[in-house]
């Protein structure tokens, strides 16, 4: 939970304090009638004037605060205690208790609150002793629901399951784990209940069915002042203002409690980022490549500082070639791919570099021009097909949208094409499937549908961000075959982002290995796997279980966060070959052969070791 903002707390606190100390403020008697002086305006004795039977308005205002807040507080507390207990018991014990509490809450909710209050008041007569229980009853279901939902949500959490597996008793789990977890939503509900209770009480008093006169209440004062408002509006306005300010403060408190309990991330700025001008000498024609990325840097504006999860990354893809970008979490591989198409999340932005495509720099292109390319010349496939497809549109519609956005063809023609595409990616019964919704398809089919959508306009380049990570192994094999086939047929360039080296070996021509936001090695797949020239690549190759059934070799330590990069080589702390020089200087990328680069000071030593190993094998 985060800190709560102070202003609403102060405001409500002040009001509550005033209400508390009213008896000691030496105010005139709030029920003292003085008809001859009725409706007199403000004066020294009576700062706010007098009401329609001569009572002091300020005094009634402050005493009214006391009665309204008291009723509201007691009602909210009772509703909270009873409601939360019922909800927790129902959620935790299940069965009959569950049914009873939830159904009860539903029935109470069938009555609009004011109505329920009116009904009870009719039967039992007005007054605070009736008001408090009935208002408590009205807001109880809210607590029951919140507590119930909270308990249900927590019950299935793995750490609760772990405690059950350990044999920890139910009561203990409930107290230690469940209650602290629902405390947030319950607090939000409490503040809501209090604010609503104040309004409900004033409404009832306004109708003459709440607090019994002559005891003061704001609602009562407003109701009474109505009859004379044509003559003097002031007696009406004072209680209106008091009530409004109180409710406003309480609502603000509700919002503050809600944000403290459930904070959202920083509000990202939405300006279009302005990159520094391209360095001179950078030829806009990337020789032979479809896409050439140069020195890309992505920045994220964190609270205090700027963090660069992608630094100085350069790569190229030629038509018909597959480049794999390999890295673990924190390597920056996904961000590199998203940056090219301008699809970074709002908190991130490209900070430097260029992405050259057909003579233009994608990073400096204006949005309409970039949109023109997205889904047409350059397409993207994402990791999770369930969340990446719109759940309320049919598959066929989503594919035709991709077509219609870029080409002017008839709807019918576009639909036909969509069906053909679905068949092409291996979805059986394509015409019928096109009318399905995403949730009606399996994971593998959804991913194929996404691929169909991506190739609808015959892109020159396909960027696939971990497209098979969420799929079963056998389905993954199918999808990889599909991609290989499409690539061969269409001559598409493919950028395949993944964390799995074996997948890279199967489908890629060239590979780029990333670690902690930088490129550490790059070159043809066969060469790199046979002769890795960076310790990280070598270690990664060894961390897959070998064929002979022995255990894989671990890399000690963890990937550093971009905020806490070590001086020198980012991999040094975990590297078995590190030397003093590695930790002192940050190595630059070196050309170690035709189309091969590595970022290691000791690559020659690695090369030598590899050769000796090959000789003895």
């Amino acid at each position: 939970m985060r800190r709560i903002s102070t202003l609403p707390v102060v405001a409500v606190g002040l009001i509550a304090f005033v209400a508390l100390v009213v008896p000691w403020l030496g105010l005139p008697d709030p029920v003292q009638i003085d008809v001859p002086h009725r409706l007199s305006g403000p004066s020294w004795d009576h700062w706010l004037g007098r009401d329609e039977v001569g009572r002091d308005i300020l005094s009634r205002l402050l005493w009214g605060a006391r009665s309204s807040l008291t009723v509201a507080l007691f009602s909210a507390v009772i509703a909270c205690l009873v409601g939360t207990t019922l909800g927790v018991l129902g959620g935790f014990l299940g069965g009959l208790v569950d049914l009873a509490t939830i159904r009860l809450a539903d029935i109470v909710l069938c009555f609009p609150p004011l109505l329920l209050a009116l009904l009870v008041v009719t039967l039992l007569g007005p007054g605070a002793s009736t008001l408090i229980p009935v208002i408590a009853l009205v807001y109880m279901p809210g607590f029951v629901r919140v507590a119930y939902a909270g308990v249900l949500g927590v019950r299935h959490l793995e750490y609760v399951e772990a405690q059950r597996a350990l044999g920890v008793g139910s009561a203990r789990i409930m107290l230690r784990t469940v209650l602290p977890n629902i405390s947030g939503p319950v607090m939000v509900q409490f503040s809501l209940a209090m604010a609503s209770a104040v309004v409900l009480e004033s409404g009832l008093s306004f109708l003459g069915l709440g607090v019994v006169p002559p005891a003061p209440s704001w609602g009562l004062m407003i109701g009474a002042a109505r009859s004379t408002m044509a003559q003097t509006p002031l007696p009406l306005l004072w209680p209106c203002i008091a009530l409004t300010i109180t409710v406003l403060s309480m609502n603000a408190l509700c919002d503050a409690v809600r944000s403290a309990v459930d904070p959202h991330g920083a509000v990202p700025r939405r300006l279009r980022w302005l990159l520094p001008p391209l360095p001179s000498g950078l030829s806009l024609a990337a020789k032979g490549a479809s896409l050439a990325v140069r020195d890309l840097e992505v920045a994220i504006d964190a609270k205090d500082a700027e963090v660069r999860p992608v630094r100085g990354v350069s790569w190229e893809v030629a038509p018909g070639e597959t480049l794999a970008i390999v890295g673990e979490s924190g390597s920056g591989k996904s961000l590199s791919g998203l940056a090219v198409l301008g699809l970074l999340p709002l908190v991130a932005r490209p900070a430097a570099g260029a992405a050259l495509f057909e003579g233009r720099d994608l990073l400096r292109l204006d949005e309409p021009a970039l949109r023109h390319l997205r889904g047409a010349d350059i397409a993207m496939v994402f990791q999770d097909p369930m969340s990446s497809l719109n759940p309320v549109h049919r598959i066929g519609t989503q594919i035709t949208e991709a077509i219609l956005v870029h080409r002017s063809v008839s709807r019918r023609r576009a639909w036909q094409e969509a069906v053909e595409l679905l068949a092409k990616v291996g979805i059986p019964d394509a015409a019928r499937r096109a009318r399905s919704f995403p949730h009606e398809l399996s994971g593998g089919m959804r991913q194929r549908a996404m691929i169909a959508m991506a190739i609808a306009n015959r892109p020159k380049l396909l960027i696939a961000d971990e497209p098979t990570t969420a799929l079963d192994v056998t389905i993954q094999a199918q999808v990889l075959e599909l991609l290989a086939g499409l690539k061969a047929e269409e001559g598409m360039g493919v950028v395949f982002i993944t964390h799995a080296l074996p997948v890279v070996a199967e489908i890629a021509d060239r590979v780029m290995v990333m670690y902690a936001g930088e490129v550490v090695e790059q070159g043809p797949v066969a060469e790199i796997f046979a002769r890795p020239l960076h310790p990280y690549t070598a270690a990664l190759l060894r961390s897959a279980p070998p064929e002979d059934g022995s255990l894989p070799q671990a890399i000690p330590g963890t990937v550093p966060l971009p905020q806490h990069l070590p001086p020198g080589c980012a991999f040094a702390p975990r590297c078995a070959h590190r030397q003093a020089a590695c930790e002192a200087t940050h190595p630059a990328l070196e050309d170690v052969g035709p189309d091969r680069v590595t970022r290691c000071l000791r690559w020659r030593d690695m090369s030598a070791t590899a050769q000796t190993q090959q000789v003895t094998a």
Partner: protein
Amino acid sequence: MWVVRRIGVAFVLVWIVASIVFLAIRMVPGDPAEIMLSQGGVSPDAAIIAELRDQLGLEKSIWVQYRDSMRGMLKGDLGVSLTDQASVARQVFTRLPRTLELIGFAALFSVLFGVPLGVLAALRRGGWLDRVVMALSGLSLAVPVFVVGTLLVLVVAQWLEWLPAGGYTPLARDPARHFAQMVMPALTIASSLAPVLLSMTRASVIDVITRDHVRTARAKGASPPRVVLRHVLRNALMPVVTVLALHLGTLLGGTVLVEYVFNYPGLSGLLVDSVNARDYPMVQGVVLVISVLFVALNLAMDLIYGVLDPRVRRA
């Protein structure tokens, strides 16, 4: 089919509500007939009490009373008013359309104001427009509905004299005045509903905009208006529909205050009058009808939700 199941549940709820209302009246301590007749502080004649008891059917066993009452309700007979011996049902159903009309306009205003502003605020999140809209919305929400109404009467009707202060004219007799009299009450109700819709819409749009399928839509090259309309709104509006339904139900009770302030002879006004007069059959009838409406409204919204979100249909 899930539709049938939902409707079934609604019927059960209504029956439970009716039973509770029935029981509530009979749970009051003392003899109901005597209490009803002694409101004026005068001890009633035993013969009159007996007549009332007979009329209310209090001589029969509780089960018979219950059965008669339920059967009556199914037939549409809600008993007879104590104040003027007129049929409760007739009064209720004369006034019901007026209240519904009022709520309809209020909902319309709320949606027209709340939803587009909410969408705009979400798209310009963090900017000055967002902050202004949210501040105004917060203020509108904080001012209780009867305060808004009273102040509107003061300012618009009494000071500026733009609109009549209240009352009701049937549509057939004078359409212009009919609508003129409805503007302020509807706006008053909207003042508490529009902010809720606005902030719900805003929160929902902000949530949906960060979802993966919106990113996919952008990756397809769709233009921002298209992304917002086809991909964001349809998904974002579903929770808003739910909230609208929830609050319309609450409004059914909330019109009490507004009708009182504007002297609008709707259902809620009838309720307050009969509460003050301790006219139990009338109170029972009105509460029952309103509760039934409430349940029906929730049901309608559930069904609409099913249309909007195909995933629900399967469940």
